[in-house]
């Protein structure tokens, strides 16, 4: 089974490290593609990055080599501290010397290490940026589940759509009835479901039908409180999730990892309030004695 030349031999013995990197990379890729939660996507990105970093570092490995820091005998500064009793002749040469080509193979390749050092730092920076964007999405839409965010965007587009409907109705009417009734515009629009926000019509008309992404996010805050009651009234538009449900879904990433406890008796909250609240009060009544002086 493990003879030379077979695929299994090649994968499991000769190039086992590549198999590990590929598996790690695929885990990250799958998480980035299939998971709906944006934070999980970021975790997948981190795993992907780790696989690539491991791959690069493994390239720098040489058989029988040590880390790329000069050994004391090759280091001119270290030669002062290390007593070289064996050969006094080398003691005279304090100056730097070029490491012999036969000794070069004794050190691991420093170049991949340097590249990956900077890659790790930039990875941290980009991860922070991505987390900030996730936080912003959460503030705008109240969720970081991808499908819910998409549903909310769709609903917003629906709210701004009636003007487009009006346009199309207008054009069809004008073509039908010889364009003799331009003042029919307000009538039609009043009959359309956009009567709730009549002042929004000229705005949306002035803009193109396809709103830019920037406008969406800026409007998200103002629209979302209005959108919630609308969704609860008419279940046909957009997603059918009630605000309460979406809230629990939004708070999922914080506590999702926790499965349901085995025996959660109903008396437990009472116990908790009994046990923890007096202690909290006692600590809260003190004017923070443990904070250091300012």
């Amino acid at each position, binding site marked *: 089974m493990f003879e030379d030349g077979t695929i299994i031999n090649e994968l499991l013995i000769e190039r086992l490290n590549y198999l590990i990197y590929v598996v790690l990379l695929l885990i990250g890729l799958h998480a980035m593609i299939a998971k709906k939660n944006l934070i999980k996507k970021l975790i997948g990105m981190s795993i992907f990055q780790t696989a690539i970093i491991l791959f690069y570092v493994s390239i720098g490995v040489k058989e029988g080599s040590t880390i790329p820091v000069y050994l004391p005998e090759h280091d001119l500064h270290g030669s002062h501290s290390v007593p070289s009793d064996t050969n006094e002749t080398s003691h005279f040469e304090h100056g730097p010397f070029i490491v012999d080509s036969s000794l070069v193979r004794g050190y691991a390749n420093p170049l991949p290490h340097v590249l990956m050092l900077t890659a790790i730092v930039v990875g941290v920076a980009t991860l922070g940026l991505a987390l900030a964007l996730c936080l912003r999405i959460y503030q705008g839409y109240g969720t970081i589940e991808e499908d819910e965010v998409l549903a909310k965007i769709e609903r917003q587009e629906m709210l701004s759509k009636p003007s487009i409907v009006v346009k199309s109705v207008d054009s069809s009417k004008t073509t039908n009835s010889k364009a003799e009734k331009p003042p029919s515009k307000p009538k039609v629009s009043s009959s359309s479901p956009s009567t709730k926000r009549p002042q929004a019509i000229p705005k949306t008309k002035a803009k193109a039908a396809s709103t830019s992404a920037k406008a969406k996010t800026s409007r998200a805050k103002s629209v979302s409180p209005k959108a919630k009651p609308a969704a609860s009234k008419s279940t046909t538009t957009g997603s059918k999730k009630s605000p309460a449900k979406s809230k629990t879904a939004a708070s*999922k990433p914080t506590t999702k990892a926790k499965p349901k406890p085995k025996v959660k008796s109903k008396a437990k*909250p009472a116990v908790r309030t009994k046990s923890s609240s007096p202690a909290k009060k006692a600590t809260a009544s003190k004017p923070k004695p443990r904070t250091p002086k300012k």
Partner: protein
Amino acid sequence: MIEYFAIFMGVALFVLMIPVVYRIGAGPTPFDRMLAVNVIGTKTAVLLVIIGTLFDRVDMFVDFAIAYALLNFVSAIVVSRYLNRTISLDEMEAKENAKKIKS
């Protein structure tokens, strides 16, 4: 002799970490997982010293060990602080149920 001892210790640590990793996967609460991660973090500091002994460069690897132990401590504090500030999902559901009953 010393190298054999170092290799033996490294292999034994690696084998004994398997139950701890099992606890990461199967821990019923997040605290169990975090505890197991903490154990593995401290043991990684030992493993770094072992690798340093094997390569005969312990003076280099001790720095890694200190830094790793420090970051391990920070991570434990972060997680405990985070879980301390948020209530559990069940409690939140109970609150929402109470709200529904009220309204």
